[in-house]
């Protein structure tokens, strides 16, 4: 009795009791900033992530695969929009968010700075990149910020088709001609390590992670998520006769998990800092699309004003 709790303490107890934080509730400023940063980074990743896949829409090998790829890319646009609108509930505008992306102030997932050079990459991206994203997003369905958690529930429902269609592409190529199987293996070789790096630095090198876990924004550590992903994915590769490009990969009976090799963190940080194969191109494309779309926004505004004027006139 008589103990004084600060607002911060009460907030901490509140999230620890698995309560959700809603937009107008009091929250520590650092919490607000962290959630804005994480959600906007996530939204930007969905949007930039459309580019490596859109690259193959016109060259999809069949009408069926073209329809599927179109639907997937359209979903990613939707995911970006759910997340932008959830981020806006914290008092930042869409224009500010887009500006942060275009000026490099905000980051997006480094995985999208790798090029998609063959059709098999559409398989590897769906299977591995969406697969890794799902691992993270399932956890985020329980994040403490209400609008983020709700956006994640909707996104997770849509993601599972993304991973399945990717795996189906890999499965078909792996069961095809020698050349097709080699193409699938090559894609797996190139996408495996970058996919593992999607989970971020290892726990000892991830200082922000601890605070995010404390606030229940993040529910599992980077290394835990990565391990879960490896354990799920290795048997899937074996099933279609592809080899994970890691000589150190080995089942550990004691841990009931796979041991795996060390990631190339120099490469990871180089790509994060903007020196990946496609960083510049991705942002240039985004700015170009945004500017070339300006007339659509202008026309929509003009049309809305005209309609309004007409309504007023006929009412008068």
């Amino acid at each position, binding site marked *: 009795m008589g103990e004084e709790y600060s607002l911060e303490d009460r907030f901490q107890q509140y999230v620890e009791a698995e309560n959700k934080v*809603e937009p*107008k*509730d*009091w929250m520590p400023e650092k919490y607000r900033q962290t959630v804005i940063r994480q959600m906007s980074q996530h939204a930007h990743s969905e949007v930039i992530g459309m580019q490596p896949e859109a690259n193959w829409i016109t060259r999809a090998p069949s009408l069926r695969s073209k329809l599927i790829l179109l*639907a997937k890319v*359209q*979903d990613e646009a*939707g995911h970006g*929009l*759910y997340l932008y*609108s*959830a981020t*806006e509930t914290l008092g930042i*505008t*869409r*224009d500010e968010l*887009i500006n942060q992306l275009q000026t490099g102030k905000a980051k997006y997932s480094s995985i999208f700075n790798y090029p998609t050079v063959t059709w098999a990459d559409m398989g590897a991206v769906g299977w591995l990149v969406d697969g890794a994203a799902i691992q993270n997003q399932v956890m985020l369905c329980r994040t403490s910020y209400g*609008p983020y958690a*709700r*956006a994640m529930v*909707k996104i997770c429902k*849509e993601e599972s088709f993304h991973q399945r269609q990717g795996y189906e592409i890999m499965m078909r190529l792996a069961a095809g001609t020698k050349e097709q199987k080699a193409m699938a293996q090559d894609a797996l070789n190139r996408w495996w390590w970058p996919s593992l790096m999607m989970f971020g630095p290892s726990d000892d090198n991830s200082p922000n992670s601890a605070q995010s876990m404390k606030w229940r924004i993040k529910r599992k550590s980077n290394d835990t998520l990565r391990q879960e992903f490896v354990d799920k994915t290795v048997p899937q590769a074996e099933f279609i006769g592809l080899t994970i490009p890691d000589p150190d990969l080995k089942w550990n009976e004691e841990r009931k998990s796979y041991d795996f090799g060390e990631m190339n963190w120099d490469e990871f940080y180089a790509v994060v800092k903007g020196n990946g194969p496609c960083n510049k191109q991705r942002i240039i494309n985004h700015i170009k699309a945004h500017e070339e779309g*300006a007339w659509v*926004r*202008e026309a*929509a*505004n003009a*049309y*809305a004003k005209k*309609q*309004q004027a007409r309504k007023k006139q006929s009412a008068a």
Partner: protein
Amino acid sequence: MAEKSDFKIWEVFIRSKNGLSHKHVGSLHAPDADMAISNARDVYCRRSEGVSIWVVPSEQITATSPDEKEPLFTPSDDKIYRHPTFYEIPDEVGHM
């Protein structure tokens, strides 16, 4: 140049099937109600999630503030006689 900020923010509500209420699903930007509806269809209904859409300008919504939570909602907490479990009815009477 027309920027996004000229567009209003709209809250989107979707009835997933007849018999259920419209439920808030998120928000979006649009210059007017008609375009808000068509954007809502593209953004929130790509898998037959709905049979009816409502869009409402966010600025038109009046909400209670979290600071009022106590005075508004706690007075009902101590009226336990409003709940069926408050009354003890012998088991022999059966389900009531």
